[in-house]
């Protein structure tokens, strides 16, 4: 469960992590067994559980039909629970009937693990499907993991000696194995059980164990991840229209929204990488919005092409994860130098190097700040939660377009693959981000001066190819102020360096001041950024309930910091900075404001548990 922080009900701070899983298939598919085994394995893991098996009403319901569906639901939590829960977070569907019969219960954005090989015409018909739900888009609202369970099971048990009907019998173990990967359950308890149960039939033992491991390895090999969902009771949400959204989707939609708001076509240059790939996948589905997605040969080409598109007047975006950001460093420095507007998304994962591709971490903050040669400060914004990613994308676009600069968005595995209810903006409520391309020469002598700046924003003008009379050249060599010609003049280099830095610093005047939540005048401030938001928020609320005075603040803007941050920090005796790294925001705050900010560090492939943050707060409060 630990991976599931997002399942914290922030409105009930005493609530903890929980997840509901339902195994569903034909009565012959062994779903009861799979469910029970998963339950046992979790019990061995020390979880609290409640289960709900459901069998076909009719004794001999025909295979593949709705009445023939058998299912087993289990709720697992690290706190006392009484019910097996209502809406499953994850549904395992072994055939069309199982999907149809259970889809209704699945929560929005839930994960569906489906044996797509069973989706042939016959079974679809039996289940009463007109069209194939796997392809007709009716599952868009969910995270679907399609698995050819039959082929893979067959292959897995090939050399074990089982034959005939026994072969596919192990399918349920394959499904169980995959769930074990997704929820980090141990395989041992199940293996032991299998060996005991089929002690008489070594080949059946071999087959079931092989299938079990194959399922687990499939998850490992294909870097499979599930969505985790924040449960919030409608009653506890402000009134409004809601949908449930995952972070990568929200990011993709936010970019589309921004391109609409700016009335600029969207260009997304990217190279697939976990956990950022879904942004590329989602954007490639919306070409009707004029979105151009470019799957480049590598991350360098992706950002280079993005720079080209930005020069061409598009809302240009490139997205990746840590290793890819490393490759983009040199080109990002060119983007900085040419002062073209663009967005660079880094969906952080466990590092360093290839690290832990499917695990959450916030360890690229200092890299985003200082990960370029020379003096090249860039604005940085971070998403706090799945739905926040939508806002952050739009805000990043605003900054990029207003200040003519690349902007870095930091997301991470939790935000990207987590989901939560999202109160939808009113129809037609897009902000106005319309930009003015230069159309006229901007110098008395009728020439165009690419580095003439706006007095307020320090932004240079965006003159795009195709505009008669504004022909100009830009590049990576230091350039003369105003004219943009190559310049080796010492004083000019200092001036341009100061100007570029000042342009970013000055953004602090154009972003909101930081708000602190401090109901009862605390001495301790807990401040965080990015996806540690829900855990920190819940922990602070718990601490308050426990009678401690604690203030809380969350930073969406990491560079520049909100203009009032210094005063805020200095107004507290103690400052605690929990982050999923070894103290990166902490270092920035200490260097910038000389406050003795205390860090709470964690890089163990898991988000913060509310309890651990809570405990740390207790110690300091």
């Amino acid at each position, binding site marked *: 469960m630990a991976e599931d922080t997002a399942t914290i009900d922030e409105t009930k701070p005493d609530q903890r992590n929980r997840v509901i899983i339902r195994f569903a298939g034909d009565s012959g598919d062994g779903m009861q067994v799979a469910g029970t085994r998963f339950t046992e394995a979790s019990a061995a893991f020390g979880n609290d559980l409640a289960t709900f098996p459901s069998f076909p009403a009719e004794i001999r319901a025909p295979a593949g039909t709705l009445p023939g569906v058998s299912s087993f639901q289990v709720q697992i939590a690290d706190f006392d629970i009484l019910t097996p829960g209502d809406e499953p977070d994850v549904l395992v569907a072994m055939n069309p009937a199982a999907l149809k019969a259970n889809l209704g219960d699945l929560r*929005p954005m839930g994960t569906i693990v489906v044996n797509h090989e069973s989706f042939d015409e016959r079974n679809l018909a039996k289940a009463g499907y007109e069209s194939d739900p796997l392809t007709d888009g009716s599952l868009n*609202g969910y995270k679907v993991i399609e698995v050819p369970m039959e082929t893979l099971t067959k292959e897995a048990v090939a050399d074990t000696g089982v034959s005939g009907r026994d072969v596919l019998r192990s399918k349920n173990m394959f499904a169980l194995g995959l769930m074990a990967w997704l929820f980090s359950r141990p395989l041992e308890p199940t293996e032991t059980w299998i060996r005991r149960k089929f002690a008489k039939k070594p080949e059946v033992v071999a087959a079931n164990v092989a299938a079990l491991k194959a399922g687990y390895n499939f998850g490992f090999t294909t870097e499979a991840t599930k969505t985790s969902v924040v449960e919030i009771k*409608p009653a506890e*949400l*402000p*009134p*409004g*229209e*809601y*949908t449930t959204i995952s972070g990568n989707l929200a990011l993709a*939609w936010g970019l*589309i*929204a921004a391109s*609409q708001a700016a009335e600029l*076509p969207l*260009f997304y*240059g990217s190279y697939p990488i976990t956990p950022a790939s879904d942004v590329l996948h989602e954007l490639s589905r*919306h*070409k*009707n*919005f*004029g*979105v*151009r997605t*470019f799957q*480049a*040969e590598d991350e*360098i*080409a992706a950002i*280079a*092409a*993005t*720079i*080209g*598109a930005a*020069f*061409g*007047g*598009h809302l*240009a975006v490139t997205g990746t994860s840590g290793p890819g950001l490393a490759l983009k460093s*040199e*080109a990002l420095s*060119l983007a900085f130098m*040419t002062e073209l507007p663009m967005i660079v998304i880094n969906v952080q994962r466990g590092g360093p190097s290839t690290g832990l591709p499917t695990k959450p971490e916030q360890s690229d903050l200092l890299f985003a700040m200082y990960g370029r040669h020379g003096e090249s400060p860039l604005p940085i914004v971070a998403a706090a939660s799945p739905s926040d990613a*939508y806002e952050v994308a739009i805000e990043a676009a605003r900054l990029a377009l207003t200040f003519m600069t690349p902007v870095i968005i930091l997301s991470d595995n939790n935000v990207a693959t987590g989901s939560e209810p999202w109160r*939808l903006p009113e129809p*037609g409520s*897009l902000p106005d981000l319309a930009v003015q391309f230069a159309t006229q020469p901007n110098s008395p002598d009728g020439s165009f001066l690419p580095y003439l700046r706006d007095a307020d924003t320090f932004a240079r003008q965006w003159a795009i*190819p*195709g505009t*008669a009379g*504004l*022909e100009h*050249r*830009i*590049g*990576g*060599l230091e350039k003369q102020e105003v004219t943009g*010609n*190559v310049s080796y003049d010492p004083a000019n280099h200092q001036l341009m360096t100061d100007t570029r830095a000042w342009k970013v610093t000055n953004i602090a005047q154009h972003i909101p001041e930081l708000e602190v939540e401090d109901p009862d005048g605390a001495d301790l401030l807990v401040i965080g950024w990015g996806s540690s938001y829900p855990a920190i928020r819940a922990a602070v609320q718990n601490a308050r309930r426990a009678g401690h005075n604690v203030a809380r603040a969350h930073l969406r803007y990491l560079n520049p910091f909100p203009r009032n941050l210094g005063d805020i920090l200095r107004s507290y005796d103690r400052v605690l900075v929990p982050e999923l790294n070894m103290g990166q925001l902490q270092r920035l705050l200490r260097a910038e404001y000389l406050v003795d900010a205390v860090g709470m560090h964690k890089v163990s492939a898991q988000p913060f548990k509310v309890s651990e943050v809570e405990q740390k707060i207790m110690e300091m409060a």
Partner: protein
Amino acid sequence: MASLNYTRGDFQTDQEVRWCPGCGDYTILASVQKYLAGADMPREKFVFVSGIGCAARFPYYVNTYGMHSIHGRAPAVATGLATARPDLSVWVVGGDGDMMSIGGNHLVHALRRNVNLNILMFNNQIYGLTKGQYSPTSEVGKTTKSSPMGSIDHPFNPMSLALGAEATFVARTLDMDTKHTTEILKAAHEHKGASFVEIYQNCNVFNNHAFIALTGKEERDHNRIFLEHGKPVTFGPDGEHAVILENGEAKIVPTGSVDGSRIVVHDVENLAQAFALSRLSHSPTGPTPLGIFRDSPRATYDEAVSQQIAAAQASKGPGDIDQLIRSLGTWTVG
């Protein structure tokens, strides 16, 4: 022709041209500027994208839109620009190091994707800007600052590599031969898709006379093999040398020694034959083919992108953000 009557001057900038006097880059610059002036296309439609190197300084001297990007990445920058803006004429300029060393991957990918670019590689077989190290086109044995005992790197044959990547337009010309250069520029520009043009360029400071076999008064007529579509491939002052194929390999024979029907008739649509011809020379120290090796149509990347967008809009309509964010189903509170 040109209804827009530009002169070369319209394509010159106020920036002082800073190559070494006598550098082949000057000649190429002049050829390009002259071609652009006559290309009958509004100046603002042209964009020159380059990487880093002496050659890559090119955009500063051409009064169009331009970007002097970073080392090796020009083909990728240009790919993004051409994909975003199919209405532009995007040109890529760089040296042999820029395009075949650090930039080799972006080059072959731009070629296979057939992005609508005109890629000019100034091949001086040396790293000029960094003061003379061997490049991926330098001959084996070349002694340079970084290869005091002679280079041991077997060089690329740029024509073979480009053809291996299935470039749809592949040509080679020579800085000194401005007439030929201009013809090639025109053909490259008219070709839809990625045009790869290797221009032999003399670096008179770090690799002088590298192309003397093709430029020297005595040598040149004996060594320039001009490829012309539909024409038999013969060369020499009196066409005394001819090229034939033997088991698919191109061989040079005395024209008289073979039946005329055996002489290769150049066909810019024949990839395999073009490849065979590219093998006639490695370093240009002897008979070397010049001209268009391949010119064959194929769907361009940028067009295909636009077509998919058009198709999507035709089928789904322009796209409505308020609908999109509700597309997963919504529920209401309060």
